[in-house]
């Protein structure tokens, strides 16, 4: 039996595609990706999805203690698309203690700590540099900035499940709404540029030296991107054509810390759970925004799992060639891109991919397609074998 929906009454995305939804959609429509070449000096180069630095301003006033690149992204993002106003309306309606907040991230503002190490003359294996950890660096700091900035005091949690983090925030928010612990929930995903992510994936041998090309026969790894995405979930729709969260599925692979299950059984189970909760069949789904990180293994595994359920009927694409893999923010980044596609009847095609790997079977959209999306599905797959699938729908 289907669960009752939760309604997405506001959402906004700031990423390499631009600041806010209009810029994001225009980039998708014009197929203007946001990846730029990034030199790592003697270590080679990669491609990264930077947010326009012109959009990032210092945090001033009483919250200036939280000023860092990550929170500047948060500040910029929350000002777009009437998001702050939507939260204010919810606060007036329900009270600020009835507004929950769930944020997904991997690194939060560790960029601050990285800089402290790099700028210090006194750091070694047995010595750390000084910095303000509580406001800049702690994984909890970003959450505290969001709650204080929006002045909301309801239930909260920072979720750290690697690349599924900001998909799982939607499922968490749904449960808290169902329990009556809140009447609205801010869900968010944030990931800033960090040397840790760049060099960590480089050490694993999965950082591509070219713009990532999911599903391509020559794909060779990920491109990373920065993003800050926000959405507001409520039990009631804001208007007749509100988008809704219809279903979610959360699983793990129980297989390996970095490699997905070789047959994609974990993500397959997540998709089936989401369909079950949504009360939908595979044939109801009009578009799938895949995790599609661009590694040979991930795309093959996800392709196999998607094909087992959906065959080659439904259009599938990964938008990581456009935004980069936004890590802890990937879930909400791709949920919002899906929702923008639903609002505008646009299936976004994969960027950079020229020749789909012939061993893969899904119906890959290489170009944009004008197509109504009544029900859309998005996958996220993270380290620790952590998987999450979300299904969104149009009510009208």
């Amino acid at each position, binding site marked *: 039996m289907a669960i009752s929906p939760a309604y997405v009454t506001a959402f906004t995305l700031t990423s390499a595609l631009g600041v806010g939804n209009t810029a994001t959609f225009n980039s998708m429509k014009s197929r203007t990706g946001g990846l730029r070449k990034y030199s790592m000096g003697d270590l080679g180069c990669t491609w990264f999805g930077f947010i326009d630095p012109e959009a990032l301003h210092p945090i001033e006033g009483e919250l200036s203690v939280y000023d860092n690149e990550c929170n500047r992204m948060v500040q910029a993002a929350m000002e777009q698309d009437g998001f702050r106003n939507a939260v204010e309306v919810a606060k007036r309606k329900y009270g600020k203690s009835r507004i929950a907040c769930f944020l997904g991230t991997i690194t939060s503002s560790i960029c601050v700590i990285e800089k402290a190490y790099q700028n210090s003359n006194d750091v070694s294996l047995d010595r750390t540099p000084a910095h303000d950890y509580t406001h800049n660096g702690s994984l909890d700091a970003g959450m505290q900035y969001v709650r204080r900035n929006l002045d909301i005091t309801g239930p909260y*949690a920072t979720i750290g499940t690697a690349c599924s983090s900001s998909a799982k925030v939607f499922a968490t928010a749904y449960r808290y709404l169902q329990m009556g612990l809140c009447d609205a929930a801010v869900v968010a995903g944030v990931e800033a540029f960090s040397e840790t992510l760049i060099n960590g994936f480089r050490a694993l041998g999965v950082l591509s030296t070219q713009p990532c090309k999911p599903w391509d026969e020559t794909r060779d790894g990920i491109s990373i991107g920065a993003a800050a995405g926000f959405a507001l979930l409520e039990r009631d729709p804001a208007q007749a054509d509100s988008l809704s969260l219809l279903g979610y599925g959360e699983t793990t692979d129980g297989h390996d810390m970095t490699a997905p299950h070789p047959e994609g059984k974990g993500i397959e189970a997540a998709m089936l759970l989401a369909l079950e909760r949504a009360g939908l069949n595979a044939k109801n789904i009009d578009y799938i925004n895949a995790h599609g990180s661009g590694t040979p293994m991930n795309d093959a595994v996800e392709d196999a799992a998607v094909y087992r359920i959906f065959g080659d009927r439904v259009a599938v694409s990964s938008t990581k060639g456009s935004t980069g893999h936004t890590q802890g923010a990937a879930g909400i980044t791709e949920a919002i891109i899906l929702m923008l596609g639903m609002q505008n009847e646009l299936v976004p095609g994969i960027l950079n991919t020229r020749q789909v790997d012939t061993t893969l079977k899904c119906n890959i959209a290489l170009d944009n397609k004008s197509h109504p999306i009544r029900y859309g599905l998005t996958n996220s797959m993270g380290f*620790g074998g952590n998987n999450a699938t979300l299904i969104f729908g149009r009510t009208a």
Partner: protein
Amino acid sequence: MYGPGLPGWDESIPLLLAPETYNEDLVRPLQSTFLTSSIKRRTTQHMQLAIHAAEKALEGTGTDRSSIELVFATSEGDLDIAHHIFYSLTLEGKPVSPMKFQNVILNAAAGHLGILMKNTASATTVTAASNSLAVGLLQSYTTALTESLPILYVAYDAPSILKMDPKSKPIDPFAVSFLFRPEPSDRSIASIRLNLLDGTDSTPVDDPVLAQISKRSSAAGSLPLLIALAKKQRAMVALPYSNSQSLNIEVTPC
């Protein structure tokens, strides 16, 4: 549970009930069938605490380890690993260890445990700094009741060799784990009902030595709840949840 002088739940009950017998210097090594020498080489104390506590909560319950949903809570990721990575980034070649990179993520412990148990259920790791225990507890409770599923909840904190936070005080390795079920069973110790309340009430621990222990990490902040469970009496326990709210726990022994 595992903490200084608190080697496990059954062994700790008499100590919690008669704290004059408590000796915080008695430290027993972590023991878990999962903590083989191979696993110990690949993990740190931070992760091993969680793995140890998780197995202890499941022992003798007949729970299917492959399908139990997990909620983990910790104040921070492994800060020793984080330091090693940050230091590596200052060196020529930026030689970040792939093993350390995969273990620096917040859900590293849950990930390793899931592999050891061949678990394919949902696993969620949360953090809220010093409020992580209560935030994770409400997360577990909410998940158990809305999904009508048992949940294994593990809250854990470990000291780091170096201070990432210059203001941080020394903490003890501490882990507490609970197996929650939405329905009572013959193994149930108590039922709990949670409520978020305005204010910063926090149930104190009467014994001064245990009170100090309870303040040294978020996970150790579970001591008021553990003492209430040990006493097998109805109790109301308040845990700090945020700067303006506390998590109220109504404990009813079964």
